[in-house]
């Protein structure tokens, strides 16, 4: 049976072909980085394929599908977390791999093409990071990637065209996602695998570059086979990398998912950590010079790195004899680390940025909570618009706080809406209706100050507010006292109640109810409300019915919560 299969498949011949590789000078821990990169890449491929089974590349669905992977799919958060941390692992290992090659001088003749294909693969790894980042279509990916494509637009002559090709048209949308998805799962993997094949072929052709010290004879003598001597070390490193990744994912709770991409927000764009140095570099070049920091300088450095095997003409492979090369790369690494650190430090020292970060954290949390009830087909951001609480607050801040004050912010030319229509608010109002907090800054000045006894005032306010409760029967005793107090204090002179009374002040039937509040917002100048003395604009033509409902819902919800506590 074994022979039958072997005759047909030739598996052990194939295995020997790949594994029977003499490692001159013996297996070394310093050779593990290449294999570790292949290991992580393979992990990325399988986790990527699994994530693709649940991902939808469309501007309306991407966030929802990633939300679903993260929160509604078994182990989804973990696999997504591994895929996310895998990109960082690739970068770290690639840099270590490069460092080892540099120190050993493994880029030198005849291995120039090993080096060049390797550098291209590093760029592709960055490409993976950049394209993958956008796919969840959350705030972070959306805004950080805008920066990258805008930079592309700065390139001379073809910049604008290039940018539109990459982002799929004049602006971010469905085609940006379908294209980035395609880059991430087809173009880049195909490219990377092709380069990997060439890279490994070239490595096998020229063999490992051993330590610089031992002579040829000694190296030959110490030769060990790749399998199992070197591969064992590679496997140990793979185990360490795997466990570190799992621990990191576990501790961080997987990859973050910010709130859905909202083009109308002013989100603070920050790229992944491995792009921070490029991002920081942009800060040092102003205006016209932008293109220098964004494109010209990085391109020159990239070209120099690629050309390294042709630049380095040192006679010996000893690192100390190649000081200019070692020095320049050391300096380059130092600059990258410095820029990254600068970026982190300047952000963590900026209160405004920390505040925004906190806010976006909250939004992300809320978006996930709202998505629990299903995401409307209009896409991720509509979870907010469909939430009366959130939308109500936004609308209130946008339209009402120009004049009204609310919880410490806003204007002060109209009554304060903090704790509006709660007992303390109304008690304060009766004590001094013309205080600046109430109607003092408006044209309404006809409400007299009432000097009621404490108990009477309490009953009156209780009675008025009891009407706000929908469908609730008002306690008959309270009703009797309330109606009597309204009668006694001459409220009927201005206010209407139960169909009788004046019409120079707001109607008291259903006082403080949703309907009453909605009526005021829609048209406060109506006879039932503030009539001729009104200065508040009518919102019935400015906001949709739904929007007004949301403001009412928000205010009433605030009120109910205050009463509860």
């Amino acid at each position: 049976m074994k022979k039958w299969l072997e005759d047909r498949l030739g598996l052990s011949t194939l295995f020997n072909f790949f594994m029977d590789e003499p490692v001159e000078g013996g297996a070394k821990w310093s050779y593990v980085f290449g294999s570790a990169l292949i290991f992580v890449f393979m992990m990325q491929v399988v986790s990527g394929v699994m994530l693709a089974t649940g991902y939808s590349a469309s501007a309306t669905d991407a966030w929802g599908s990633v939300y679903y992977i993260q929160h509604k799919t078994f182990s989804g958060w973990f696999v997504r977390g591994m895929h996310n941390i895998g990109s960082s692992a690739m970068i770290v290992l690639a840099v270590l791999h490069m460092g080892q090659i540099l120190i050993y001088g493994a880029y030198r003749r005849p291995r120039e093409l090993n080096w060049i294909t390797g550098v291209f693969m590093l760029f592709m790894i960055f490409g993976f990071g950049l394209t993958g980042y956008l796919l969840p279509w959350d705030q972070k990916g959306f805004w950080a990637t805008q920066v990258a494509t805008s930079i592309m637009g700065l390139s001379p002559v073809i910049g604008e065209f290039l940018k539109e090709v990459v982002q799929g048209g004049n602006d971010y949308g469905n085609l940006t996602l379908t294209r980035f998805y395609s880059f991430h799962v087809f173009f880049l993997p195909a490219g990377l695998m092709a380069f990997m094949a060439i890279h490994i072929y070239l490595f096998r052709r020229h063999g490992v570059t051993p330590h610089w010290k031992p002579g040829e004879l000694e190296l030959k003598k110490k030769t060990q086979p790749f399998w199992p001597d070197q591969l064992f070390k590679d496997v140990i490193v793979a185990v360490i990398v795997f466990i570190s990744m799992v621990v990191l994912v576990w501790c961080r709770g997987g990859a973050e998912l910010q709130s859905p991409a909202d083009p109308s927000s002013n989100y603070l764009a920050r790229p992944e950590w491995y792009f921070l140095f490029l991002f920081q570099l942009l800060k040092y070049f102003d205006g016209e010079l932008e293109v220098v920091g964004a494109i010209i300088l990085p391109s020159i450095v990239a070209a120099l790195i690629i050309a390294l095997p042709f630049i380095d003409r040192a006679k010996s492979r000893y690192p100390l004899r190649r000081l200019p090369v070692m020095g320049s790369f050391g300096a380059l690494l130092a600059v990258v680390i410095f820029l990254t650190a600068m970026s982190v430090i300047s952000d963590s020292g900026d209160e405004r940025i920390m505040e925004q970060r906190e806010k976006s954290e909250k939004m992300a949390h809320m978006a996930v909570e709202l998505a629990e009830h299903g995401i409307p087909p209009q896409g991720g951001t509509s979870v907010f618009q469909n939430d009366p609480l959130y939308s109500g607050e936004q609308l209130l801040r946008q339209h009402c706080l120009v004049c009204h004050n609310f919880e410490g912010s806003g204007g002060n030319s109209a009554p304060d809406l903090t704790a509006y229509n709660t007992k303390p608010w109304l008690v304060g109002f009766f004590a001094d209706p013309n205080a600046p907090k109430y109607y003092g800054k408006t044209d309404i000045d006809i409400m007299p100050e009432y000097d009621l006894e404490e108990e009477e005032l309490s009953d009156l306010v209780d009675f008025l507010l009891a009407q706000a409760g929908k469908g609730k029967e008002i306690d008959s005793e309270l009703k009797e006292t309330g109606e009597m107090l309204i009668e006694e204090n001459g409220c009927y002179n201005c206010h209407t109640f139960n169909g009788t009374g004046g019409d120079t002040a707001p109607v008291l039937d259903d006082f403080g109810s949703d309907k009453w509040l909605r009526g005021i917002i829609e048209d406060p100048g109506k006879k039932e409300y503030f009539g001729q003395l009104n200065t508040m604009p009518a919102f019935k033509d400015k906001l949709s019915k739904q929007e007004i409902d949301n403001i009412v819902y928000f205010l009433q919800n605030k009120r109910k919560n205050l009463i509860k506590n």
Partner: protein
Amino acid sequence: MNKQIYVEETEIHTNKGRRNFLKICSVVLSSLIGVAYAVPLIRVFISPALRHTVSGSTGLIELGSISSCQVNVPMNMKIVDAKTDAWTKFPPMEIGAVWIIMNEDKEFTAFTSICPHLGCGINWDEDSGEFICPCHDSFFDIKGRVLSGPSPRGMDTLETEIKDGKIFVKYQKMRLGISDKMPA
């Protein structure tokens, strides 16, 4: 060629036992990684099969008035329901259709329009007085029984209820291609 050389030379400073140990360790450790990683990956992959991904109302859905219904003339009515599809929650929209038939005793029967064979939409052919599935030529009579064709069972009835001149249906998808009627 040079392979020969290294085999000879490496025999000198290593021994077979150590190398076998390394081989076993390598295989065991990499298998462990493989298994550890496969578990969450497989969980992700099969997850949709273990939960309800697409759902609508489970109760009765109102179809509309039955005043225009004629005896033994199937009437096509659309099922309008709010649907949740994985992450998306759709507002009410058409999710399917049923055939409503009133018999001489004013009793109502509802057939789902999904063919029990492979799920195509069944039509009513007025001329022949038969239900026809256009995909694979299954024919059914007005009582939903198979007359001819590949369908393994008759048309699937749905629970109905009449209230205030309106018909309500409990809309359900059935498993296809088997001779027993079973909810999908």
